[in-house]
């Protein structure tokens, strides 16, 4: 048997730290890093007597996130306590949402690198609070043989949304594409910075396999500790391979939690279902239920723009961009906005515009460190340039020069072409005169051509361009050269 016999079934759960000024239930700043235990107060340290007060911005972010994925926003939601002891969780319960999350359902539409599109339903997105961070230290300061633990509560109480996906994903690549779309969308909405390296997006994957075509799910393993999209891809692929191997060698997959070992490239068993917690969820009596009015939903919905997926589809389906270029634009929101304005101003010359935006202009932006959208080139100037090149009013060499000048000085592309006399000479008579001059000046080369060395055509074309100071229409020049060389004597 082979892997084509098997189908993987994958469900992703991810935690995303929300971007708010303050923490979820207190006024401490919600910022990454800082000296340990400097962003803390009685509430997020769970001092006796302190009480949580919900962050309204975090709740609004949740609505934005849910609505962007067509989730249902129930009119009533509430916070529950998830009880378990852990040293970096100050209250020894986490304020979370159990049976009445802020958003229910929805669907994440995504695309893969090769342009294939897919979708994965969401079960829910709910709001909770983050924990602190433990560091284990020994007497000599090393982790090995640690005898004590240090806890930094700066992160404790940071608002966290948990997105739970349905088991609709079938490959490691799809899982990554799903996560990338979530990340793009949350960034676009401004609800999170989604920095995996700072831990603001953390994900777990439930992985199982079944015979291709089977209706029943297999037994799943939950994979944890994947800290980058790359490790998500590797971990899931490795886990699928492991499960196939287990089953094909006559074994049975058991339900358990497995940790991803980045260095070894394999997952390790962490705990089995039998050791599962009883979290004793109950409604948090310190917090009142959350009423979400229709007016609030309508107001938040009105703030939503085009999602990254919608933009991608428009670029590919309407503008005819290839998937790679469309993705490049979608991943840079200011660049995409610049691109869209330039395309509109140019009357829809998307291909010509994208060639500059991802070509010369991208290079100049990269070299100078100034993002394109913040530079001197206006979308209107770029639109003019796109028109000039698409109508062959200037040739590509002149276009390069115009781009450089616009980048350095700004201004109008048309005015620049006029001022510098860069307009392409496409007048047949004028170019023919130059061709005649060049042929007359290079009798040896003409002889070579006639002797069959047709590769001298490049030299001759270059000579015509040079003689015209770069303005001759190169296509026309070549055409006339050929005509005269074959027709002539």
């Amino acid at each position, binding site marked *: 048997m082979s892997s084509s016999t098997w189908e993987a079934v994958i469900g992703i759960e991810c935690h995303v730290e929300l971007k708010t000024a303050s923490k979820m239930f207190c006024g401490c700043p919600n910022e990454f890093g800082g000296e340990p235990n400097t962003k803390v107060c*009685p509430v997020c*340290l*769970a*001092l*006796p*007597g*302190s*009480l*949580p*007060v*919900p962050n309204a911005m975090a709740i609004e972010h949740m609505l934005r996130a849910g609505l962007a994925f067509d989730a249902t926003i129930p009119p009533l939601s509430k916070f529950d*306590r998830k*009880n378990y*002891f852990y*040293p970096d969780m*100050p*209250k*020894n*319960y986490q304020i979370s949402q159990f049976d009445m999350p802020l958003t229910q359902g929805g669907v994440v539409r995504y695309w893969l690198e090769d342009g294939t599109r897919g979708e994965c339903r969401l079960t829910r997105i709910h709001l909770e609070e983050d924990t602190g961070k433990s560091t284990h230290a020994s007497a000599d300061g090393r982790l090995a043989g640690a005898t004590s*633990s240090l*806890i930094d509560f700066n992160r404790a109480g940071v608002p966290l949304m948990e997105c739970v996906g349905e088991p609709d994903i079938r490959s490691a690549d799809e899982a990554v594409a799903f996560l990338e779309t979530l990340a793009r969308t949350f960034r676009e909405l401004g609800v999170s910075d989604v920095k995996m390296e700072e831990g603001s997006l953390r994900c777990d994957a439930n992985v199982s396999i079944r015979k291709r075509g089977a209706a029943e799910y297999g037994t799943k393993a939950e994979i944890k500790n994947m800290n980058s999209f790359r490790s998500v891809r590797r971990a899931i692929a490795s886990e699928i391979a492991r499960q196939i191997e287990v089953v094909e060698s006559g074994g049975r997959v058991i339900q358990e939690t497995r940790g991803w070992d980045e260095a070894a490239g394999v997952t390790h068993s962490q705990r089995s279902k039998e050791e599962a917690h*009883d979290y*004793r*969820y*109950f409604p948090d*009596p*310190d*917090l*009142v239920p959350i009423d979400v009015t229709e007016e609030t939903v309508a107001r938040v919905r009105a703030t939503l723009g085009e999602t990254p997926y919608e933009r991608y589809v428009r670029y590919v389906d309407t503008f005819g961009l290839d998937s790679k270029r469309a993705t490049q634009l979608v991943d840079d929101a200011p660049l995409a906005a610049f691109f869209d304005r330039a395309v509109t101003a140019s009357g829809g010359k998307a291909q010509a515009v994208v060639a500059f935006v991802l070509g010369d202009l991208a290079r100049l932006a990269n070299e100078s460190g100034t993002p394109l959208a913040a530079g001197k080139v206006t979308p209107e100037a770029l639109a003019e340039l796109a028109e000039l090149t698409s109508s062959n009013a200037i040739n590509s060499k002149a276009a390069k020069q115009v781009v450089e000048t616009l980048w350095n000085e700004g201004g109008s592309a048309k005015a620049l072409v006029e001022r510098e006399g860069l307009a392409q000479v496409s007048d047949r008579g004028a170019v023919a005169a130059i061709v005649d001059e060049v042929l007359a000046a290079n009798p040896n080369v003409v002889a070579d051509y006639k002797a069959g060395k047709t590769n001298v055509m490049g030299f001759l074309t270059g000579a015509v361009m040079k003689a015209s100071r770069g303005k001759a229409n190169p296509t026309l020049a070549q055409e006339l050269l050929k005509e005269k060389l074959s027709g002539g004597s």
Partner: protein
Amino acid sequence: MDPFTDSAGAIARAVNARSTSAVEVAEALIPRAERVDAQLGAYLQRTPELMREHARRVDARVASGESLPLAGVPVAIKDNMCLTGTRTTAGSKILEGFVAPYTATAVQRLLDAGALPVGKTNLDEFAMGSSGENSALGLTRNPYDLDRVPGGSSAGSAAAVGGFEATLSLGSDTGGSIREPAAFCNVVGFKPTYGRVSRYGLIAFASSLDQIGPFARSVADAALVYDVIAGKDPLDATSVDRDVEPAAGFLREDLRGVRVGIVKEFALDALDAASRAVYEAAYADLERLGAELVDVTLPTAEYGLATYYLIAPAECSSNLARFDGVRYGLRADGADVGEMYERTRAAGFGPEVKRRILIGTYALSSGYYDAYYLKAQKARTRIAEDFARAFERCDAIVSPAASSPAFRFNAKSDPVTMYLMDYYTIPGSLAGLPSLSVPCGAALPEDGTRPMPMGLQMTTPLFTERALLGYAHAYERATLHAEKLTPVTAVIESSTSLRAPSGNRA
């Protein structure tokens, strides 16, 4: 002006008028509280330096032209409320030595109104108890018989006011923890509507029931405190954003036109003959003042105790999880973090606290949640509905505040017998209603030598504190029961005649 016996209103008037100073009040009270407390044990910690500091601040504010509602009034604070720089223990070994780095909203409002903090008072550990005996840190005695309990859980706050060691105090009431000790100590104890007073800085026992309220020697003084501490607090999401009708200036002198409900299920024949006589007389006095007595029924009240002893422990099992030895308070070392937790909590919590954590953990467990916690919540709703129906027929409901007067130490070793002390107070707590106990006479216990004070409980609909305090004031002024008893601690200050304030005309 007598700083020991005068009403809060009278002291504040004198300090505001600068006929006396807050510093003079403090200097008079500090040595007295020390002497009296050697017998009473109301305080876990007295804070004389803090009291002097606040007194100086109050005098400076008054000198600059401010008029403060509680200027120079000595107050005692139950030790489950945070006050910056003071040890805040909740009567538990697990918090022995914990110094609060912040101040509870209700305490802050009192201090801002000019009150002077005498100290932090003893309580049943984490406010779990009805006698004060569950404190792990001290023994508080009843000022009217030192061999008897002061009631609980706000034991020290009731005893301090009853024993004239403070003019006012703050307590907290979860199932009767203000009203029962108030009845035992011959003082007024008032629990406002749930959500009226911020819980921020009150160490949680059962979050959906806990409510801060005052002890005072008169209803008028209780009203004065209520006006200061009530109102929305942005730091407590459950505090209610609803205008507070000031009560202090709106108290009434009679009960004409008031329909007073007598609850069928709270029949007095459950009491001994002496206690029964006290309440029969109280009901007759209400009628004499113009009230119309009407029979009402609370059919689900009998489930109050069972309901309460599921909901309160469930919440406490979660609320007390934070006491784990990691960040503050007691830590007993162990081989790993799990053992450290176990040893810390085994050593730090007393038996009643452990019992309730166990009950609550069980009630919330997977497979039991529906049968216990969820069912208790449904019962709670039914009880609240019963009250709402009863209030269609009456304006206030009266009953005994406790099942008996103060009993001797160690008289109730069986927890359920102790729980039954709160039989009358718990249903109103479950319904979140404003409720108080006002002194209504005394009865000589069979095993006693002195008549012990008793309290009449009055309960009104949600957010009707002004009306409730008005009814209680009318009853109190007409009967003056509190003034008929003298605490045994009076002999300490033979020069001072200790009486409850009369003629408080705020």
